[in-house]
């Protein structure tokens, strides 16, 4: 055939997010399949394990809930390998989960060899701060375990995939997940030396929400992580300016009242006169430096700390405005205006609701980023959410796999190209 139909059919994307694994071939269309990025190591002595005697060492995908046992059991047996975007070099359990997820993804889309199929061309996407050994381990996994279904593999950083999926070649991508956030300038390729990582994500918004619940008399509920997350999503707001928002919320408490009914239960949370605290939830994600948070730190809430993981230092208290400026100012001066003109926000931690009645006081994530940059003198800025925040990394993987020539071989110095696995 004249056109390369192979890539039209057998390009396969895998996005290893902090909480979800998104995967599927190009033929999935707009949306890939999703399972939790986690694996369960069953107790081999348990009755449940014996009932499923064909079960593997590690269970991944939709079957995980069938094996779950007591809560105490979960902490040791349920492994989220990329909770912080990184896997320790010697964390064999985490790598086992990643291997099982790769196999699960491929097995979910079997292809027959007599249909011209010689294996998928797989594009896997990892966190931008992934050290070289993560690339090595992931590529090794495909080399040794999946040779039958895999023709070639490559790995690209998630912010790069976001930019590709969104169709922008010069931009700053901010990817914010549960555990951390990454700021990555891109000009036809990620500018690695200008990346900034923050040790702050959706999990920190959960932490301040739990403190607010305790202060409002719901301490008994503050320990349930999934409930706290729902409350955060239900009542949390991003203030344009925190001081003005608190003043306004205290002046008109009915308008800003924070109430959340837990579906299917009798539980209803009502912050009443403390409803102004709902603005702290959003502010904390974007800027934890306001003096109001000191009272929470002094009462025992952990302050986001600088953490060194691999070769990267994840900054704890740097606000998003300063983080973007720090990142952009590491790039050539003539590129900087172009980067500010295209800032892309990706990841679940930027999905905040804004009620029309609160417009101007509560804002969405792009408006907040603009506001933080304006306060630091950066004005000609365009900030957008990616059109498909959940799937933009997978979209980028698919486009990358389709477009990059198959004879472009893997280069360990550039960390790009195809590593040939099968025939």
């Amino acid at each position, binding site marked *: 055939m004249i056109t390369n139909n192979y890539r039209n059919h057998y390009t396969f994307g895998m996005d290893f997010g902090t909480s979800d694994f998104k995967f599927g071939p190009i033929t999935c269309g707009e949306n890939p399949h999703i399972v939790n990025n986690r694996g369960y190591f069953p107790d081999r002595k348990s009755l449940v394990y014996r009932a499923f005697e064909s079960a593997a060492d590690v269970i991944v995908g939709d079957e995980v809930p069938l094996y779950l046992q007591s809560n105490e059991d979960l902490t040791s047996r349920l492994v989220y390998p990329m909770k912080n975007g990184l896997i320790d070099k010697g964390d064999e359990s985490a790598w086992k989960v990643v291997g099982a997820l790769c196999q699960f993804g491929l097995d979910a889309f*079997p292809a027959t060899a007599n249909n011209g199929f010689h294996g998928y061309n797989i594009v896997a996407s990892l966190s931008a701060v992934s050290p070289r050994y993560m690339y090595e381990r992931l590529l090794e996994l495909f080399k040794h375990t999946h040779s039958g279904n895999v023709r070639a593999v490559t790995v690209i950083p998630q912010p790069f995939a976001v930019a590709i999926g969104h169709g922008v070649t010069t931009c700053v991508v901010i990817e914010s997940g549960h555990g951390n956030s990454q700021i990555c300038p891109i000009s036809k390729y990620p500018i690695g030396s200008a990346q900034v990582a923050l040790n702050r994500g959706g999990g920190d918004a959960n932490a301040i929400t739990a403190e607010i619940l305790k202060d409002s008399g719901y301490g008994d509920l503050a320990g349930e992580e999934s409930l706290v997350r729902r409350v955060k999503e239900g009542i949390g707001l991003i203030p344009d300016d925190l001081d003005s928002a608190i003043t306004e919320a205290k002046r008109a408490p009915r308008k800003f009242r924070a109430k959340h009914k837990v579906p299917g239960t009798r539980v209803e949370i009502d912050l009443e006169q403390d409803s102004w605290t709902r603005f702290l939830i959003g502010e904390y994600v974007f800027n934890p430096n306001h003096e109001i948070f000191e009272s929470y730190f002094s009462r025992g809430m952990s302050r986001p700390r600088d953490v060194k993981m691999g070769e990267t230092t994840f900054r704890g208290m740097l606000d998003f405005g300063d983080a973007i400026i720090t990142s952009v100012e590491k790039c050539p001066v003539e590129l900087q205006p172009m980067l500010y003109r295209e800032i892309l926000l990706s990841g679940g931690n930027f999905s905040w609701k804004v009620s029309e009645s609160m417009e101007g006081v509560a804002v969405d994530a792009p408006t907040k980023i603009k506001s933080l940059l304006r306060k630091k003198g950066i004005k000609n800025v365009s900030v957008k959410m990616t059109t498909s925040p959940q799937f933009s990394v997978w979209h980028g993987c698919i486009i990358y796999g389709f477009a990059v020539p198959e004879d472009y071989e893997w280069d360990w110095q550039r960390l790009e190209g195809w590593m040939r696995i099968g025939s």
Partner: protein
Amino acid sequence: MMGNEHTLVSVLTISDIIQRNRIIDTLLHLSSLRAEGTQPYIAAPRLLGATLDSQILRSSGIGLLLYDDKRIEETIKPEPIHRTTGTHQTSPSSSTDTTLIAELAALKLMCTELEKNMSRMMTEIKSLQESGTSSTTISRDSDTGRALGLLQRPDATFQTGVLDAGALPSFFTNNPWLDVLSKKGRAEGPLLAG
């Protein structure tokens, strides 16, 4: 037209990449008009260059022009066709043409047949799934644990796709990265097809 020579150019656009059989149709069309001209070309966006098989174009004597916003480059020269003066004379190239056209027509027919078969199989699979759902019973198999397991486990095999064969998802539309990425590993200068 230059002197006694004609040049035929069929232009493909970016949107053609997502249309099934568009390139085959173009090649068939060019081949059918070869009696009228001696310099048949396909002009394609530079992006598409990486997906075209130069060998097939060369063997059929069709030239390739790659274009973008800035320039047009002749990547493959066409093989000239010499007109025959008598109906009884047949040159080797016209014989190749006839064979090529016949082969392409056969391929097109096979493709249509395959699509029909695929569609019929999908219908059959769907009806099997429906009948399976409506007749679920708990097995009295001695290995009850395993039987329950089979019933309760989610089906981990998904449909292989929602797109028609050869179609591309909407996020490919006007994506400038297709052009950028297709040049990966290519040295500056004329692009080579295939």
